[in-house]
């Protein structure tokens, strides 16, 4: 019996847990278990590698200092990763995923930098290394920019003149440099380091002009990039678990990216190359007719108290104001009085698809009260009151009626079919996509201005007194 076989079997088990984990993650009942299975497989693969891995040509040594360093690195990463993941607010989730994704990319890039010298003379291996290096670096710097943008450290999309041309030139240069290095195989590492830096710059250029609203798509795309980079590493080491893990994420991530684009009704190329809501598009919207109508908190309370059915449309603004818990209180209070209350969840509500579900689940809103768009849309006609909290673009009728609008064609929640629409907003500022919303000017719509948490708390108090 060979030690190598044991490691191979461990890798096989780990690969199976990854597939199983992903599969189980696609059902609400089994998702949590699936995640734990995959984590177990990962732990097995890591421990197995530390104890049993041996290079075919005998390069592998296990001096105590190296083992200590590896364990120390794992210890530091575990503590830091665990604490961040446990402490972060759920609204900050998307940027955290982006940050962790960047770490994986950086890891892949460093492997490429270190393996280059060992593989001089082997064209195939070098091509794999260089590809992994480029993709890992792009994923790293791109994820960091996405993180900063979601974090609002970097606020406005930055416009670079003739950006598309510049970007394409940089990308082609990057690929040509990669091919050049693989062919000439310079012994000195300098060129490879330059390539690394260049790839980092490309990652920055790639993400920097993209608006915050499109960031989830970008993160999902970079997620599959990192998967690909990991797979290149697996190819290099003939390591099956890295290969299956990486490719699985690469292909699953691509499908997920396309699903997100579909939900926003924008082709991927549009997200990457066509910056959103740029000057021309914003001005081209239809002319605004009618006026805004205010509603007081007590009138809102009365309206809701005597309604049969209330649909709440939550948006990211709700989460920013930390109003998830108050809205749940409102829901319970209305239910007590015999009002039917459900939530209408747009596929891209929040900052990522499904983000809003996570946020509402956090405040104990029951899973079966969250109704997806296709199912809720026909129900608006029989709804008495729609309460829109912190959402804007997902209820903008311009998506259906105004071909010049940048969100034209995006499926929206048909709230305008309801009898009364109450919109809670902080101010009249345009939504995340930077466009005006005709819904606010309709006669059926009333505006309830103010911070979501404050307004909803007052509403709850008002209802309690009725």
């Amino acid at each position, binding site marked *: 019996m060979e030690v190598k076989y044991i490691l191979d079997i461990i890798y096989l088990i780990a690969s199976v847990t990854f597939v199983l984990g992903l599969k189980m993650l696609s059902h609400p009942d089994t998702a949590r278990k699936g995640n734990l299975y995959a984590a177990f497989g990962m732990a097995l693969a890591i421990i197995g*590698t530390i104890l049993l891995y041996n290079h075919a040509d005998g390069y592998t040594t296990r001096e105590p200092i190296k083992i200590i360093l590896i364990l120390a690195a794992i210890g530091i990463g575990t503590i830091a990763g665990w604490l961040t993941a446990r402490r972060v607010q759920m609204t900050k989730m998307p940027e955290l995923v982006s940050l962790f994704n960047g770490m994986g990319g950086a890891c892949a890039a460093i492997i490429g930098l270190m393996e280059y010298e060992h593989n001089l003379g082997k064209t195939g291996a070098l091509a794999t290394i260089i590809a992994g290096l480029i993709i890992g670096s792009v994923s790293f710097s791109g994820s960091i920019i996405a993180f900063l943008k979601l974090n609002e450290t970097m606020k406005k999309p930055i416009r670079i003149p003739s950006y598309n041309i510049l970007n394409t030139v940089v990308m082609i240069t990057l690929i040509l440099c990669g091919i050049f290095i693989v062919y000439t195989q310079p012994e000195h590492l300098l060129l490879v380091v330059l390539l690394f830096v260049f790839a980092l710059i490309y990652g920055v250029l790639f993400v920097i002009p993209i608006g915050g609203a499109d960031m989830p798509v970008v993160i999902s795309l970079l997620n599959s990039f990192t998967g690909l980079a990991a797979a290149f590493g697996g190819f290099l080491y003939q390591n099956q678990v890295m290969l299956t893990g990486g490719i699985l994420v690469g292909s699953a991530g691509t499908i997920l990216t396309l699903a997100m684009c579909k939900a926003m009704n924008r082709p991927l190329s549009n997200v990457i190359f066509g910056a959103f809501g740029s000057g021309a598009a914003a001005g081209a919207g239809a002319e605004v007719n009618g006026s805004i109508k205010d509603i007081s908190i007590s009138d809102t309370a009365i309206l809701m108290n005597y309604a049969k059915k209330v649909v709440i449309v939550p948006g990211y603004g709700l989460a920013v104001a930390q109003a998830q818990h108050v809205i749940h209180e409102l829901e319970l209070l209305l239910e007590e009085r015999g009002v039917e209350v459900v939530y209408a969840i747009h596929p891209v509500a929040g900052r990522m698809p499904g983000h809003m579900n996570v946020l509402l689940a956090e405040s104990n809103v029951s899973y079966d009260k969250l109704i997806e768009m296709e199912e809720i849309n026909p129900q608006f006609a029989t709804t008495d009151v729609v309460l829109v909290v912190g959402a804007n673009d997902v209820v903008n009728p311009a998506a259906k009626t105004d071909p010049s609008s940048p969100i034209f064609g995006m499926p929206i929640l048909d709230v305008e079919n309801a009898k009364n629409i109450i919109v809670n907003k902080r101010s009249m500022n345009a939504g995340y996509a930077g466009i005006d919303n005709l819904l606010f000017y309709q006669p059926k719509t009333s505006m309830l201005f103010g911070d979501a948490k404050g307004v909803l708390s007052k509403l709850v108090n008002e209802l309690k007194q009725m």
Partner: protein
Amino acid sequence: MLNEIINFLGENIQMIYIIILSVFVGVEVIGKVPAVLHTPLMSGANAIHGVVIVGAIIVMLNTPAENILALALGFVAVVFGTLNVVGGFAVTDRMLEMFKKKK
């Protein structure tokens, strides 16, 4: 040139089988996910590509103990990889914890 490519493919044919089949498995497995689970799924997938840490450990094991620079780089790579793995799984678990049926 063509010769080289054919040789490369031939020598790695098993790996290529794995790649192609994994692509299909990935697509199939994800295809039917309800939108509610997109965020946890993305986060879970994010944790799985942390498997790149295995590569970082291999690099360190293959580096001579005297090569301090390489060991330092490898150390950083292992820290990054662990962050990806542990952070990824932990945050996914935290999200899914909330989906538990509450009565």
